């Protein structure tokens, strides 16, 4: 029977929803038994959340002060040691997983499969390339360990009704190098729903023209209980911080409803939203490529349309 080891992503207290999405992907690997590993300073709270995920049979915890912040250099050697007992080692295709998993793959002497969007057979997967302009079917070499990241936007989270998983603490012997040190994390603290998991997302583009003007996007989002995103152009122009970028090199998201406001719709942006349930585009340029993918399009001046929409929804 195949064994899958999934690396949990968390902030020390709360399991990131990316883990439950990866668990759905793992369930597509025929007959696989799924274990989750939690690296943390104190893994207890996160381990319980991971143990509740449907399909998980065991949670392995590694408690070490260095794991208070996720450093690939510290996690990788320990994860490699644990990987000896598994056929698959999975992580999310978030900045956490993208940073960590290739380091693990290289230490295990295998190539990594990045951004799994579907499992076709136990060693065969589909993944996007060229900003999603092509989907390639890839096959891992027979008999080799599979190290992969999962494109979380392609999967729904599994439920968390599981009561059968055990939690086991282990202490890997692998030495943790001291050459990499955490300094600080600056987060744009916000009460809004998290961009990567929000059911509704409102994004603004370059047409907002200033950081102040972005207020109308925030107002609309707050009226709808939505997360807020932005195009690369809006981030590059300094209207909003980097963590709001949606697209090929930013966040790949799949909300039920996505509102693209003043976003022209470069392919690099579209690749970040193509799994959204319904895409609404508001743009004054009727030729904008965003209208080619929008389910509902409205040609108009965002500075009058957006306040009107906010008013209509409040």
């Amino acid at each position, binding site marked *: 029977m195949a064994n899958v080891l999934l690396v949990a992503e968390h902030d020390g207290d709360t399991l990131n929803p990316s883990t439950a999405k990866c668990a759905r992907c793992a369930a597509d690997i025929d007959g696989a038994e799924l274990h989750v590993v939690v690296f943390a300073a104190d893994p207890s709270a996160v381990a319980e959340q991971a143990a509740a995920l449907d399909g998980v049979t065991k949670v392995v915890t590694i408690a070490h002060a260095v794991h208070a912040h996720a450093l690939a250099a510290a996690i990788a050697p320990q994860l490699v040691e644990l990987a000896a007992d598994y056929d698959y080692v999975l992580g999310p295709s978030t*900045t956490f997983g993208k940073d960590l998993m290739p380091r693990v793959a*290289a230490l295990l002497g295998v190539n990594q499969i990045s951004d799994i969007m579907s499992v076709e057979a136990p060693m065969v997967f589909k993944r996007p390339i060229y900003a999603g302009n*092509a989907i390639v079917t890839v096959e891992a070499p027979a008999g080799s360990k599979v190290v992969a990241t999962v494109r979380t936007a392609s999967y729904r989270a599994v439920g968390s009704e599981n009561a059968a998983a055990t939690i086991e603490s282990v202490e890997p012997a692998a030495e943790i190098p001291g050459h990499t040190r955490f300094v600080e994390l600056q987060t744009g603290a916000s009460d809004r729903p998290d961009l990567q998991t929000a059911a*509704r997302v409102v994004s603004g583009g370059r047409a907002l023209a200033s950081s102040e003007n972005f207020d109308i996007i925030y107002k609309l989002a707050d009226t709808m209980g939505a997360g807020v995103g932005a195009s690369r152009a809006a981030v590059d122009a300094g209207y909003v911080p*980097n963590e709001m970028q949606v697209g090929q090199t930013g966040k790949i998201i799949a909300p039920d409803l996505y509102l693209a406001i003043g976003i022209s719709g470069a392919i690099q942006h579209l690749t970040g939203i193509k799994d959204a349930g*319904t895409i609404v585009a508001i743009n004054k340029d009727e030729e904008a490529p965003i209208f080619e993918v929008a389910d509902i399009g409205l040609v108009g001046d965002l500075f009058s349309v957006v306040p009107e929409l906010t008013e209509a929804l409040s």
Partner: protein
Amino acid sequence: MEKILVGLKRVVDYNVRVRVKNDGSGVETDGVKMSINPFDEIALEEALRIKERGEASEVIVISMGSQDAQQQLRTGLAMGADRAILVETPESVDPLSRARVLLSIIERESPDLVLLGKQAIDDDNNQMGQMLAALWSRPQATFASNITFQNGAATVTREVDAGLETIEVDLPAVITTDLRLNEPRYVKLPDIMKAKKKPLDTVAVADLGIDGAPAISETAFAPPAQREKGIMVDDVASLVAALKDKGLI
């Protein structure tokens, strides 16, 4: 520091809309404009700025592939790199084998810093820097948006999902660059002329004695699923009505 090594990958230009071949055997690259991977261009720009600040003395650019990759290396030299190395390989090399090739060049050149783009815009793998750092047993700082140096270490701000993370890594190290690290310079004509005289060494991959890694095979290519054409509405009231129809508000 003494040397900075910068990887430049030759990729289909950022502005080309890539299409899958009709027979599903790959993507159409015949006659398509090729360029330096944009993230690698940012890596080179950063290396040049570090050198111009007097914090490094030599910038070496390296590429892997056919002789065609000389074009991208010459562009790198015209931007300001001091010399170039082309590792000539069969057209397609898997990321782990590429990391092994880079490692063997590192063992010859002993750079203090390796700067790479965070991902190539063709395969979108986002692996090389991390793999190289692992094989080299050195630190990695991925997705960099700011880099400074002090006392043999680099302080790197990283663009992560939660915001901006800062880490400190001892040198030598591998740093991979994100979009907002800098804006690469334009190449001027006299620099292109000067670049023709700069050294460009070709090394055959066979001479490096690298063990090839078991590659992941690509068995089929397909265009992405298309979304169905939607509807256009004339005003906010119709938009709200359409959203209500779908049960979204």
